């Protein structure tokens, strides 16, 4: 599969920027409110982007979507 490097270049453009955090250096347990993502904010630009993306979805899309039974 020689094309694999070309594929990696293609998908490498997907927006996935890294902000690594080491979980073991800061143990997180019940009550540790700093762990995990923050509560989603309302009215933020990123929320607006998501709502915009959602409004573009065809309301009939699921109605048209048909699959055969799988396992």
């Amino acid at each position, binding site marked *: 599969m020689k094309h694999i490097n070309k594929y990696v270049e293609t998908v490498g453009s997907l927006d996935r920027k890294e902000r690594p955090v080491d979980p073991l250096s800061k143990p997180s347990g019940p009550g540790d409110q700093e762990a995990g*993502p923050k509560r989603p904010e309302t009215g933020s630009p990123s929320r607006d982007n998501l*709502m915009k993306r959602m409004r573009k979805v065809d309301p009939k899309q699921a109605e048209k979507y048909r699959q055969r039974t799988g396992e």
Partner: protein
Amino acid sequence: MAKNIGPLKLSKSSMNPVRLFGIETEYGIAREDTETADPVVESMELVRAYLDGHFTRRWDYRGEHPHEDQRGFRVSELAQDKEEDLFAEQDAHRPFSFHEMKSDLVLPNGARFYNDHTHPEYSTPECRSLKDIVAHDRAGERILWVAAQRRNEVLGGRVVQLYKNNTDFHGHSYGCHDNFLVSRSIKFENLVRGLLPFLVSRQLIAGAGKVGREAQERGLTPGGFQISQRADFMETELSVDTMHNRPILNTRDEPHANRERYRRLHLILGDANMCEYATALKIGTTRVVLDMIAEGFVPSFDLSSPVQAIQVISQDPDLKAVVNRQQGGTISGLDIQREYVQQARLVLTDIDEETEWILQEWEQVLHQLEQDPLQLVGKIDWVTKRWLLDSFVQDEGIGWDDHWLASLDLEYHNLDPERGLFFGLEGEGRTTGISQEREIQEAMKHGPVDTRGGLRGLCVQRFGEDITSIQWEGVHFNGKGGKLHLDLLDYLEPGSVADCRTVIQEATTPQEMIESMTVKNS
């Protein structure tokens, strides 16, 4: 912009030789430019789009025994056999054979990619660490999307769309199966007793969320939101079937390892996860429970009706519902999970770094589900999807019975990075990653270095043209003196895998590889 939380410091290999797992995912596929697309052809063409050249049949089906039952018998037929026969009749007019239709590929990373029941299916190579299984699950998404892009180039538009979900909202479900190698010394009835309450409530961590209700072959009843995509399709506690009469615990006895020593636990009840964190905890918590059972753990209670319980728990995203215990009284899904994680601390004596990470995160998720579920947006799929849909319902002033919500539910799972709602969240930095981008890209090219999945992939990379047949347990090659066989059945522990890896890397031909292996083993 995914926030990455590890387990970054975890060693990639556990010394437990039977700690091996993998995920098989059947994807939904749709053509948006025509209503008359043939699903058989579409799935086949999608898989083949990943190839540079022509398809050559190499997968060896002789290792597959779907009629063998862990309970010690063989069934004469599966519930799906009649439907399969019907499809075979319908498919008979097509100008290609069954094997051409399946188009089974083994990729250079040791994964299997093929057309299963008209769904493109990606089976990860065997993995030994959570870090690897998450990277390989994500690699599968990327490989499928790359295949779709290539197929769309041929079709002249972005018309093929892929969905990593489990339902078409018309009563047709397709699976995401998680598999674990388990010692045969554990009695199957002990596995069943130890696992059932855990599996019934595992959806709290690993459910992908779904609007409305369904039943097999019946349409969607709109309204409401439930935790699991698959709960509506669970019909019995135990069964060898996978397409009808689906069980919470599948009894197929197909170990893909030494049958005298191992079982393969084949779980078909799970949802396909978009959140890496949910994938890690789904596999991690299940692995921990298997370790507990291996140590003799038995839950203090049984559920009166596990099938009813899985649906009751799924239909209560506010987590207030309780289910009946055989021994009397009731228990909530959260309390079932708490019993397991608390017992794990008592039962497991040798807790390694990865296990400690699992236990800490498991405890925290249960705490947050009870106290503040929105903390889990971007980590747990059903919480994330519910938040997205709830925001939309409020913004648009529509009801929870609006059909638009099923379309949004579907779109959460779309693999197209410009359309998928999960990927929209990921792009906004609201998801929690386990894998680094470079690890996902590496997983697209190479299998895990410490499992036979990596060995299989290495064979494809080094001697792909010489392979005549291949499957989970071994590889056959054409050699100068005739057929050659690399038996991977017993390459389960890291030391033997490392030795075999060195031999494959140093050999210049399959012949040389087998000869070196023979000398090493003599």
